[in-house]
């Protein structure tokens, strides 16, 4: 009965039904992170370092503790009370150190202490009474400065085995990969361009701040409600940091108001649990926007050197990139991913890439939609654009000439299976946008982009009700319409309407471990598991029909929501609908459910091509994005409206990153723009209608051909916009964001 062969004709998949969470979200009934309350609940607040780098000499909480409204105060001493584990290592230690500072404050905004009090106001007032004596240390926030010989050492011994000898201790990881002989390749080129590029850190900018409600008893049993992309991750990390058993902490993911990678880790959750344990009451913690900017996980900043050689016919003869990424005060900046993605769209004979992970006095970076890839694409695709301009070549033709395809050896090692880059480039070339005339002051840019996509641990259960409806329990928080997609895929297998299926994001007590909603993995991996769980239920439905008809189970097949005899020899029985089987399932063998769990590994890499028209005001340096087209391979679009939304969302965030978003640090190492007024994400009127083209080159690793679509859409925009702006302004822009002062300064120097 298995449907393991790939389907290509669909009844439900590919349609655009209403979203299941729509009514809740427009009426305010949806419950987000801050919408949880408990009897006796206290309110938490966190004291944060005003210094970029400082030794914590003394913390005196006595005055705050004396307030009658204050029920608990925690510092680092209240964490990781582990009778059976001497200490934490690796990422567990990093996360602990990040959620509550130990000996040193490592960045402006680093948590120093926390209070639980009977009201939010009382908690904030209590923070003002906590006295902290700091010994301020030299700090560094810029990636190139952090690697310089005279840079202050942020943490001795933070580097791992991969770092070559002689590097500054702030270089904590090193990656090098590639193939061929780049020097020989450069020698074959008719034109070699070498240039350097810089991007500033940006924030994911999710509208919902981090929020949670925690309850942890002295018996080591706890409950946690939080806004997260991965509640099993939160369970594992919180339990470890608090020194309790994982299974004793039940975590429920709230409805989520955006994450984009930034909610794949924990910040306030372990603190709320520690406060709750100490106060013996539930504690709610909600960040304000300034805390979100200063103390959660923005993306890395980057400094990059690119060298590419090209023949007059557009053939790339060699490519080399050095990518230095600053990811805050802890290891984790994705220099390796930047390096691996940067040249991945191209079939190159000679390629070499180096990535550095550099620590600095900034908040610990977190994932942001294809982490590391957009900045690398910006640098590489800018040089490609310059090569095309100088050689008089069409930028789409050059990319087509060098495009990777099935069988190409990827720049980062493996050989590609069936991929859709060429199809996106051909669609770009054929799109009316690409041949539309430009007005004076306007420029056009194009760029390709790549992202790996991910599988990850996945567990899904599906249960049928006696009325023939179905409930699907997934473990991946819905950050991009996955409940609708799961329902469509289950509907496809079961043959019952989309509306008869309810998909729930189950808590950690209801399913086995599920990896975080990241890596564009949910529609792929939870989708695959949903299909297999539905197949599992279909097997049982067929068994019940076989028993009823008195024929062997392999003489029954499932068609359009009914059990039917598999052929003329199986017997002459009327089709038996799903609801007829479930109606008396209690008497025919009991409940009918399906389950599937695995770590699927056929996620299927993803490519996209973007076309952008930008208009630059030469007197003020102000850029308007006047037209934007996203073309991306979805493998198979389960719910095309959501796929288009992902494409548009990636482009919108990319426009912000390219033009105006940036972390601005003062000389004192403090973040200067920790509110949305001065951290300038695009507003609706800044964006044109973003046109989308869904290319479908099926992924061989998924039953319906799905490739993840969430992340690839933010890889090309920085480069495509930079190319458009550079072509409009007549000067190559090498630093992001391309804010008006930077563009005007570049125009003056032209």
């Amino acid at each position, binding site marked *: 009965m298995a449907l393991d062969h790939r389907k290509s004709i669909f009844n439900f998949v590919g349609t655009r039904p209403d979203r299941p969470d729509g009514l809740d979200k427009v009426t305010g009934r949806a419950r987000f992170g801050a919408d949880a309350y408990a009897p006796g609940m206290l309110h938490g607040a966190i004291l944060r370092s005003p210094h970029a780098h400082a030794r914590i000499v003394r913390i005196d909480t006595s005055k705050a503790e004396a307030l009658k409204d204050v029920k608990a105060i925690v510092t680092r001493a209240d964490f990781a009370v582990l009778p059976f584990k001497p200490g934490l290592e690796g990422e567990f230690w990093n996360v602990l150190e990040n959620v509550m500072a130990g000996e040193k404050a490592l960045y402006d905004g680093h948590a120093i202490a926390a209070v639980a009090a009977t009201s939010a106001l009382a908690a*904030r007032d209590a923070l003002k009474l906590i006295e902290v004596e700091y010994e301020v240390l030299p700090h560094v926030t810029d990636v190139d400065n952090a690697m310089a010989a005279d840079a202050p050492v942020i943490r001795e011994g933070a580097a791992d085995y991969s770092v070559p000898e002689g590097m500054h201790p702030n270089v904590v990881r090193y990656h090098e990969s590639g193939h061929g002989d780049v020097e020989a390749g450069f020698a074959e080129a008719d034109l070699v361009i070498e240039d350097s590029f810089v991007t500033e850190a940006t924030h994911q900018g999710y509208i919902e701040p981090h929020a949670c409600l925690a309850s942890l008893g002295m018996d080591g049993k706890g409950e946690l409600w939080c806004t997260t992309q991965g509640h099993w991750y939160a369970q594992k990390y919180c339990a470890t940091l608090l020194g309790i058993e994982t299974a004793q902490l039940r975590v429920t993911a709230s409805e989520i108001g955006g994450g984009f990678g930034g909610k794949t880790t924990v910040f306030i959750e372990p603190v709320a649990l520690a406060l709750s344990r100490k106060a013996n009451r539930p504690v709610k913690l909600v960040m304000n926007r*300034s805390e979100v900017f200063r103390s959660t996980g923005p993306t890395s900043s980057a400094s990059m050197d690119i060298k590419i050689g090209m023949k007059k016919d557009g053939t790339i003869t060699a490519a080399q990139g050095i990518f230095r990424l600053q990811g805050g005060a802890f290891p984790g900046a994705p220099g390796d991913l930047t390096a691996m993605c940067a040249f991945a769209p191209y079939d190159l004979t000679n390629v070499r890439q180096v990535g550095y992970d550099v620590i600095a006095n900034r908040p610990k970076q977190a994932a942001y939609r294809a982490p590391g890839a957009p900045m690398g694409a910006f640098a590489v695709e800018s040089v490609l654009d310059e090569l095309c301009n100088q050689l008089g070549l069409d930028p789409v033709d050059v990319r087509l000439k060098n495009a990777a395809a099935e069988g190409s050896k990827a720049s980062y090692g493996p050989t590609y299976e069936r991929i859709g880059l060429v199809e996106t480039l051909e669609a770009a070339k054929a799109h009316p946008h690409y041949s539309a005339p430009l007005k004076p002051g306007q420029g056009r840019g194009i760029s390709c982009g790549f992202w790996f996509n991910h599988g990850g641990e996945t567990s899904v259960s599906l249960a049928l009700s006696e009325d023939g409806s179905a409930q699907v329990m997934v473990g991946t928080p819905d950050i991009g319409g996955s409940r609708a997609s799961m329902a469509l895929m289950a509907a496809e297998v079961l043959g019952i309407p989309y509306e008869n299926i309810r998909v729930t994001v189950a808590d950690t007590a209801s399913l086995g471990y599920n990896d975080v909603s990241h890596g564009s993995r949910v529609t792929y991996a939870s989708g695959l598991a949903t299909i297999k769980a539905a197949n599992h239920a279909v097997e049982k439905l067929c068994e019940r029909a076989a028993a009823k008809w008195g024929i062997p189970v392999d003489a029954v097949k499932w068609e359009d929501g009914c059990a039917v005899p598999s052929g003329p020899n199986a017997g002459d029985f009327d089709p038996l609908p799903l609801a007829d089987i479930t109606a008396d399932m209690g008497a025919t063998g009991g409940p009918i459910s399906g389950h599937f769990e695995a770590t699927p590994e056929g996620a299927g890499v993803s490519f996209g091509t973007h076309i952008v028209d930008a208009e630059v005001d030469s*007197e*003020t*340096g*102000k850029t308007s994005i006047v037209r934007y087209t996203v073309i991306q391979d979805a493998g198979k679009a389960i719910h095309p409206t959501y796929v288009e939304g992902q494409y548009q969302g990636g482009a919108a965030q990319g426009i912000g990153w390219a*033009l*105006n978003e940036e972390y*601005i640090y003062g000389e004192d190492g403090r973040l*200067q*723009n920790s509110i949305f*007024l*001065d951290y*300038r994400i*695009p*507003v609706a*009127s*800044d964006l044109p209608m973003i046109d989308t083209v869904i290319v479908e080159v099926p992924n061989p690793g998924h039953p319906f051909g799905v490739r993840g679509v969430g992340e690839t859409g933010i890889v090309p925009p920085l480069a495509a916009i930079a190319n458009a702006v550079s072509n409009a302004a007549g000067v190559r822009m090498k630093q992001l964001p391309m*804010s*008006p*002062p930077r563009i*005007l*300064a570049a125009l003056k120097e032209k």
Partner: protein
Amino acid sequence: MDYHSPASFAEASALAQNATGITRFLAGGTDVLVQLRSELVTPDTLIDIKKINGVHDITRNSDGSWTLGVAATGAEMSEHPELGHDWPGVVEAMDLIGSTQVQGRATLTGNLCNGSPAADSVPAMVAAGVTVTVTGPEGARDVAVENIPTGPGKTSLAKGEVISSVNIPARGENGGDAYLRFIPRTEMDIAVVGVGVNLRLDGDIITEARVSLGAVAPTVLLVEEAARAIIGTTLDDAALDALTAAASAACNPIDDKRGTIAFRTEVAGVLAKRTAKIAYARAKGEQA
């Protein structure tokens, strides 16, 4: 914190005169409440003046001048059938502030008293020659808008003094005003540079002009050199060049997260030119 809602400006003035610590007047509250919530300023005394009779009124006087109550909002100004016809620059400047929700509360007086050099309505008011009536312990007096701010967050208002009305002159014949600001986005932002221009024509010749710059100095500037550059001209290219140079020369900005000194200085000239063109077209009765 003590909260008061006096019935008259005399009472408001007396409350402020006798208050200790930090006092704030509350009209729209779009600055005061934001500062309160973000713990930038926690007043000891909050005096709510929006319940005083007449403070929401927008009145055209018999001589053609206008009197606006201190709690008349941006939305009420924009929706007024005639105010925007007389003073489009003032109304548009006010309308640029914040979101639709903020427009339902925000006021000219609050924008002025907040003391921000980047306040959008202030250069437009200065260019238009707007005065405010100040009620204090000694009675009432009229003060030109440009004499209210003394530095970022600071005003010339003495203890016990409160603005009780906004007075916009009669538009008169052959006049036009305009306000433009530079922001990196399209809305919901703070001016990096703001320019207000108000002028009057005799035929094609500019006979009167006032040019005002925002966000390029510790206070909004009334730039007489810039006005002189266009008075007596038809706003020809030479006049525009002189205006641009005069506006840039008047700048005394800072480098900060919103813009650089070089950028602000350059763009002030560009915007002065663009704003003057709009005001000129309006004075000619053309759509602009």
